[in-house]
């Protein structure tokens, strides 16, 4: 047990200690706070800083990390990587199709994940079926891993439903639009997993241990709800992984508007581990998330992960990023593309041949066609949908309102011409 040691290590991690060491502290000492430009330099550097966990670098070179092993044999490694490659390519493909459908007026909005494929597929593939995930609104890649068919994402963005899948059957909660809300909901769910005895080695049942993962953005870290989620999780040892995709932007605001220092440091303030992983490295994201989920499943939660990545497209199809960021930033990140490095590794090491890549392309094309057809075929529910599932139990007042509305609508059917 190294707990006390670990706590101590945390408690010495404050500016003052370092500060005191630099002088007697008699007079106001030189600036301790980083200057804005230093912060920007530290945070926006595409390298992600020294603490970044990376196993597959942008050049496609693979270096296993001793603390975060992939738990895969050399024999199985190619299949693993090819699977991840396929996931990322397919997800990117329907994401691009979503954008196109919006441009063509078939969707009222699309929220692109472009650039975050590795962060999402790595995390998503670390999840077991029994694990619960709470997305924000951009986690199409995680949805994919959770077995949500991409077409099930369309109703939200076409405006025919607020949620197209079954959160209970899939263990994937509905998209959450109010920034931060889902993170404390995730903690609550994880508290329930613990209360159920589904965490740690169970003597009484044979069901596999469970954990929860909450997805949120760099901007979301400023919300009170995210804080309270971390406070509650620490207080109840909840098996929840706080997975922050730092894509450098909250709409037009760069991450340094939310924090002076890298976001994974927040975890230390609450007394649980925080890790920064290269969010464009699908293997690192997989390894680190697996480790974190395992920690949680075995009762050592919570854990925070900051996936350092980049929003390569606009915030949504309604956004115009040219107003607030330079093109060269996007160019720099293009060199770090999460899919490209996997392709390079597979090709260079002879793990996959041209036929493999062609086949994935073909599969992606098929998916895109199916996605588009489904979208265009999506129909608007009957107006009565408005009144259904507002409550689970009978509600006479709403029933009356519905009946009145029904007969109001029927009035139009009786008339040949409606007003004006």
């Amino acid at each position, binding site marked *: 047990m190294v707990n006390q040691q670990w706590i101590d290590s945390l408690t010495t991690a404050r500016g003052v200690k370092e500060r005191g060491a630099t002088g007697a502290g008699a007079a106001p000492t030189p600036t301790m706070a980083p200057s804005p430009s230093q912060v920007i330099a530290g945070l926006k550097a595409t390298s992600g800083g020294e603490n970044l966990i990376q196993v597959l670098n942008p050049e496609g070179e693979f270096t296993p990390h001793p603390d975060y092993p992939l738990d895969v044999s050399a024999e199985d490694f190619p299949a693993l990587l090819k699977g991840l490659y396929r996931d990322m390519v397919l997800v990117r493909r329907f994401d691009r199709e979503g954008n196109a459908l919006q441009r063509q007026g078939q969707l009222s909005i699309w929220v692109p994940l472009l650039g975050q494929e590795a962060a999402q597929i790595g995390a998503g593939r670390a999840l077991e079926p029994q694990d619960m995930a709470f997305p924000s609104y951009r986690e199409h890649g995680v949805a994919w891993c959770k077995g949500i068919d991409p077409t099930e994402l369309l109703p939200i963005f076409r405006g025919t439903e*607020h949620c197209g899948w079954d959160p209970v059957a899939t263990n994937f909660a509905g998209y959450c639009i109010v920034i931060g*809300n889902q993170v*404390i*909901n995730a903690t609550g769910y994880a508290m329930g997993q613990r209360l159920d005895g589904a965490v740690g080695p169970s003597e009484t049942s044979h069901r596999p241990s469970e954990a929860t993962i909450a997805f949120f953005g760099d901007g979301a870290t400023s919300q009170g709800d995210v804080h309270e989620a971390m406070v509650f999780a620490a207080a109840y040892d909840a098996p929840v992984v706080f997975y922050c995709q730092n894509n450098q932007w909250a709409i037009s605001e760069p991450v340094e508007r939310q924090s002076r220092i890298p976001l994974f440091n927040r975890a230390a303030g609450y007394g649980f581990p925080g890790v920064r992983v290269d969010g464009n490295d699908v293997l690192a994201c997989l390894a680190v998330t697996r480790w974190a989920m395992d920690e949680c499943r075995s009762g050592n939660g919570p854990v925070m992960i900051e996936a350092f990545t980049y929003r390569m497209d606009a915030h949504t199809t309604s956004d115009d990023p040219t107003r607030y960021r330079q093109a060269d930033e996007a160019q720099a990140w293009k060199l770090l593309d999460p899919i490209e490095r996997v392709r390079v590794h597979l090709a260079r090491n002879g793990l996959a041949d041209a036929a493999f890549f062609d086949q994935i392309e073909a599969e992606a094309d098929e998916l895109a066609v199916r996605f588009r057809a489904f979208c265009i075929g999506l129909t608007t529910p009957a107006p009565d949908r408005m009144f259904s599932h507002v*409550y689970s139990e009978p509600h006479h007042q709403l029933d009356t309102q519905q009946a009145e509305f029904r007969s109001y609508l029927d009035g139009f059917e009786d008339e040949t011409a409606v007003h004006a």
Partner: protein
Amino acid sequence: MNATGSAAVGAAGVAVVGMSNGHVSSNGHASAPPTTLAKALNMGLRASMENDPKVLVMGEDVGKLGGVFRVTDGLQKDFGEHRVLDTPLAESGIIGAAVGLAMRGYRPVTEIQFDGFVFPGFDQIISQLAKMTFRTQGRVKMPVVVRIPYGGGIGAVEHHAEAPESFFCHIAGLRVVTCSNAADAYFMIQEAISCDDPVVFFEPKRRYWEKAPLDVGAVVGSTFSSAIRRTGTDVTVVSYGPSMPVLQAAADAAAAEGRSLELIDLRTLSPLDLDPVLESVRKTGRLVVVSEAPRESSITGDIAARVMEEAFYSLAAPVLRVAGMDTPYPPSKLEEYYLPDLDKVLDAVDRVLAY
């Protein structure tokens, strides 16, 4: 000027006649032991926890302390820390965690320590708790109870005496109910817990220590319904929760002056159970609505508007409202002026009869 009536009225529950969905149930049976409203809630919580292992109690100080009003007294001792959770001091966290626990199959009963402290949790209530079922096409149910001690008259400092029920009545997806006596408290809290929808459960804090007969074996229908507390012919007076004893006192005083008031305890504020009110107004032609909440954009306005819509020709006078002032809750030495009381109700009765 009279005080707000708590002392004057005494064991208001004695006169209780519960009428639920048409069938009369005398849950105020005289041989039943007198019980405080707080104790009745405690008994109701206990019964629900015994009946269903998924029922959890969570909030600030609900454990060892038993809540600042002792409503959860002894529950942690008897059911354990895994059923009765003292939470970190954060209301958004409390509601938000309850939402997650409900998704996991639990039935959390959350306690908000005082009315004025529900607002840090307001976002989770409106954005998640109330909308989750609709969002997920009924796939995710939200059997969460939010218990809120509310109302004034206890001489408290700021934020401890508010009547925020109207905010919640304006939120689709929630049910809002409130009890006014021990018997209702016992049955209503159980009905709230067993309901698959989120229920905001308002408890009239200045009535916590008032006793009324409680027959736990009584057969009651749904308590989420308006209850006629006294029949009368001249004016219908409608209220709920903390003001019900005020209404009883007013009806006594009016009777002494030869005026017959019909009293209705709404119990459910959203949805309203308006039929008994409409029926009464069709008889009396006059309606006074009483509530501690400020008047603007409130539940009292809604009741007035709906009664006008549905019983226009029956109204011999406008619906009059006796409400809290459109001011922040004043320092407690002034609360007797702020709150509806016997005199204000009688004054409104006078005025509505003057038409």
